[in-house]
């Protein structure tokens, strides 16, 4: 009697179209319909998970296009775990190679930004640094502090206005236009829900410096070297208000 693993191998082969693999276990009255039900349920599970995680891509390409593409992706890169919450890490890169997506030049970037948002949604909880806690620090201590980013912080920079386009699409607007202004998108979930906002090159530089473990003074210097016109005080206050920094151990 063949063992359970042989059956599983045969069943998965049959799901992939090789029905004969399963014939030792198929009752004489087994039609094609039963296997199709399993096949459709599996595909639907994957596609629904991708639709939940890439809502902006879905809104841009429409239901039919999205579901067809997502089903192809799911066949090439099935989930590796039972939790589909973060399924689709490789979907943006896959879209980049997907021939029908070549006519939609900003789709890959939009997928990438949807992914950042989802990562921020499910990241670990942590207390964020508040303006009050910061004000309690002596100025020289602040300069030497290495501010760590909150675990939910995600940001990505683009050499065009993709973040603005993504934000408009996410808010349900159509008639989208892509500016050639370099922008970045910041997602953070320090106060319950994910907040996102389009940020400029100076803020992005500041966040990068913090991510690399530099002190506040080094980060400020790095921003001013690259962007001499940057106004640091409001930039820093804005990031604090977003909750992008982890609370400091005192």
């Amino acid at each position, binding site marked *: 009697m063949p063992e359970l693993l042989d059956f599983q191998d045969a069943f*998965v082969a049959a799901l992939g179209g090789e029905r004969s693999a399963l014939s030792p276990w198929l009752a004489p009255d087994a039609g094609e319909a039963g296997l199709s*039900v*399993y096949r459709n349920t599996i595909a639907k599970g994957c596609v629904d998970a991708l639709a939940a995680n890439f809502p902006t891509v879905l809104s841009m390409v429409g239901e039919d296009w999205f579901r067809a593409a997502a089903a192809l992706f799911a066949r090439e890169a099935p*989930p590796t775990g039972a*939790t589909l919450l973060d399924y689709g890490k490789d979907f943006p890169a896959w879209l980049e190679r997907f021939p029908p997506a070549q006519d939609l030049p900003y789709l890959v970037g939009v997928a990438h930004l949807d992914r950042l948002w989802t990562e921020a949604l499910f990241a670990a909880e942590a207390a964020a640094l508040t303006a009050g806690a910061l004000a309690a620090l002596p100025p020289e201590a602040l300069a030497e502090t290495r501010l760590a980013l909150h675990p939910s912080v995600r940001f990505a920079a683009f050499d065009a206005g993709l973040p603005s386009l993504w934000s408009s699409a996410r808010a349900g607007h159509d008639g989208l236009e892509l500016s050639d202004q370099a922008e970045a998108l910041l997602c953070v979930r320090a106060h319950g829900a994910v907040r996102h906002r389009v940020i400029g090159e100076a803020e992005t530089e500041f966040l990068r410096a913090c991510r690399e473990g530099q002190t506040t003074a080094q980060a400020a210097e790095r921003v001013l070297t690259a962007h001499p016109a940057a106004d640091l005080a409001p930039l820093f206050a804005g990031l604090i208000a977003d909750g992008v920094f982890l609370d400091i151990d005192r």
Partner: protein
Amino acid sequence: MITAGLGLKPQHYDEALTCDAEGLWFEVHPENYMSAGGPRLAALEAIRERRPLSLHGVGLSLAADADPDREHLAALKRLVDRFEPFVVSEHLAWSTHRGQHQPDLLPFPRTHAALARIAANVGRMQDALGRKVLIENPSLYLPLTGHDLDEVDFLKALVAQTGCGLLVDVNNVFVSASNLGYRAETYLDALPAEAIGEIHLAGHAPDEGGSDLLIDTHGAPVAEPVWTLYRRLIDRIGPRPTLIERDDDIPDFATLMAERDRAAAMLEPVLEKAHA
């Protein structure tokens, strides 16, 4: 008193939190809460403060010819510790195979070898969680050969070997009986009453692909023949926590509560009889 409950959906968090129905409880798939953090976990925590909760696993793949995934089991254990559910359940089915996950509840030939493997897996699950779990009967779509045991005998053996309990999904019984050609009443009447710890009720639909199969869609109200079978089951075994499962085409909270209230009303006289 825990009577009839509802599958909890994110779009209903606010109403679930404020609803004051007596005996109401909620069930979630732990896989939807296996994240490091996020607002869903926070919402579940708030609801759990007011209501009993059941964790109904869909991804541990107990009927695979492999040990349950350690990370998955550890994540489940963290949720059990955090939310202290009154029931933890899983399915008599598999979904993982050689490192890949098929998000469905797949069938297998109910051989003695399969029984030994699945009993060992249920044992591992119970050991890891430090508690008894309930195992749910699946919806079946494909007539297989090579079974050594019918499904009821298989479930009974699993109960005897592992000390697990059963979650009886009456809609799954109805769907499988229709698809594979047996009598749902005979199946239900043969289940060991004392092992049953929970009942599921859900909706099904005819196959859009045009076959004669019924599909366990969880996307429609509970069908009348399923209510009739439910009546028959609780008249025989007595009251059990009963869940309205809805996972697709989800209506508003009040519509689901109306179905849930129907189950609660059916449980009431059975409860009185049990306490008389």
